[in-house]
């Protein structure tokens, strides 16, 4: 409970609005730092950990916030900016097409020309000699390659009609039995089978046992075959761990929860909206631990459009003095 004694309500509300605006600004300005860093380091290997560090974002969640706010992944943005820079170099520099191709990250001028033509309709040599040729803008957040300047702001991707029912919940620690799955999410059924068939004879599928999934990687960034996912079922302290099953605690705390209704294939869209739109406009900070999902129905006997998944995003405690 917030203690309001001594602070007139109006002033309190002003403080709250100010804090919120400040946090939104903070998401924007931190992302602007990342974008400038990317612009200045287009020739370097841009690793996500370094980018997250540049803006003091949780390394777990940086990429989801990024692609949610920008509407494209870091990889896509970098590839696009390198091509835009190449277009600018074609027009304004004397560099050879091969040099430009290599600088844009292509192995040969052939490969570069193919991609460049697909984007502009013109071969690089023709583009160079056509006065009116422009490189098309395909960025949703109007971020374009700029020379000798710094980006000062941008329009984050906001869908006006999108309503997100996000609840802030205090979650207790959850002890879970789990099986780790590494590979595409579509094949995590094997982990669930092993977990359920091991726990069933022990009488552990009854009561209020919850089916929980913990994903450690962003499928937009990590190769499908390397995605780590834990299939978990909540157990109590008396659980004796069989050989092939792990045990761990999902750390409690403040979480933002949203229900995703529909196919599991579309979970990533809800994640993107939660991180890119809800979080960046809220006065909350995501904590440096993974999200988890609670599955409320059985995918075997439920139509995909009726599946309900509660997504929990961890929040930093005592954010801006709030409990």
């Amino acid at each position, binding site marked *: 409970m917030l203690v309001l004694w001594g602070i007139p309500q109006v002033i309190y509300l002003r403080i709250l609005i100010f804090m919120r605006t400040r946090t939104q600004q903070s998401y924007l300005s931190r992302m602007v730092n990342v974008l400038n860093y990317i612009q200045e380091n287009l020739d370097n290997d841009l690793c996500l950990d370094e980018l997250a560090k540049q803006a003091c974002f949780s390394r777990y969640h940086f990429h989801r916030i990024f692609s949610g706010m920008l509407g494209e992944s870091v990889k896509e943005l970098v590839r696009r900016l390198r091509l835009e820079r190449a277009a600018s170099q074609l027009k304004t520099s004397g560099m050879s097409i091969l040099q430009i191709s290599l600088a844009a990250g292509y192995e040969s001028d052939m490969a570069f020309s193919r991609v460049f033509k697909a984007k502009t309709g013109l071969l690089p040599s023709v583009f160079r000699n056509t006065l009116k040729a422009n490189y098309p803008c395909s960025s949703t957040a109007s971020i374009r390659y700029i020379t000798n300047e710094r980006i000062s702001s941008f329009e984050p991707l906001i869908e006006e009609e999108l309503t997100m029912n996000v609840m802030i919940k205090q979650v207790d620690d959850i002890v879970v039995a789990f099986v780790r799955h590494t590979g595409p999410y579509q094949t995590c059924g094997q982990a669930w089978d092993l977990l359920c*068939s091991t726990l*069933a004879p022990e009488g552990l599928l*009854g009561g209020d046992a919850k089916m929980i999934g913990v994903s450690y990687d962003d499928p937009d960034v990590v190769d499908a075959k390397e995605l780590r996912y834990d299939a978990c079922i909540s157990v109590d302290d008396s659980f004796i761990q069989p050989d092939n099953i792990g045990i761990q605690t999902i750390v409690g705390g403040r979480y933002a929860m949203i229900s995703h*209704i529909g196919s599991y294939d579309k979970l990533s869209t809800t994640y993107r909206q939660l991180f890119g739109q809800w979080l960046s406009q809220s006065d909350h900070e995501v904590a440096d631990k993974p999200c988890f999902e609670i599955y*409320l129905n059985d995918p*075997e006997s439920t139509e995909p459009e009726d599946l309900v998944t509660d997504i929990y995003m961890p929040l930093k405690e005592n954010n801006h003095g709030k409990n």
Partner: protein
Amino acid sequence: MEKIDLYKLHKADYIQPKEPVLIKIPTAHYLKIDGTGAPGSTTFDAAVMALYAMAYTIKMTRKKHGKGDYVICKLEARYWSPTEQCLSEIDKSQWQWQLMIRTPSIVAVSDLTQAADALAAKGKTPSVHQVKMNEFEFSNCVQMLHVGAYEDEHYTIKKMLDFANKKNLTAKREHCEVYISDPRRVPAERLKTILRMPVS
């Protein structure tokens, strides 16, 4: 081994017509638990929990032992009145019900005992020993899809009764509901429930 999906195999038993139709549902096996009380009451919810706990424990234990796999079917519930009065005329706390999940006949009594003992040993799901395997024949029924809140089912039931009367059929003082939607999540006005009324 092929996974058995009784709901799909017997699609004809689970048709969802917008107007009443007459169908015949043959004998089938069900995991079931009986009780008295209003749907949504503590007893009712405990029975739902016990039935599901048994269904999944039996399925996964059998799977572990290489006895094949099957899909857990939708929850069905038969409701009837303990008196001569109609269900709508008596207090819901007096409603008698049987909650059922259609289950392959290969599931043996020993599977049930084993599952109930394991669950009871953990003590978190009471009434698991009341879950039994039952053979049941609905036989001739009027069936129709109800879309909307459970409280509004009497409109659909009235329609089904009128239909039965027109066909000179007598409805028994009971009906069955097959829950297509998840009431925890689907807004009441969009809930889908198959209503089934045995007639003779």
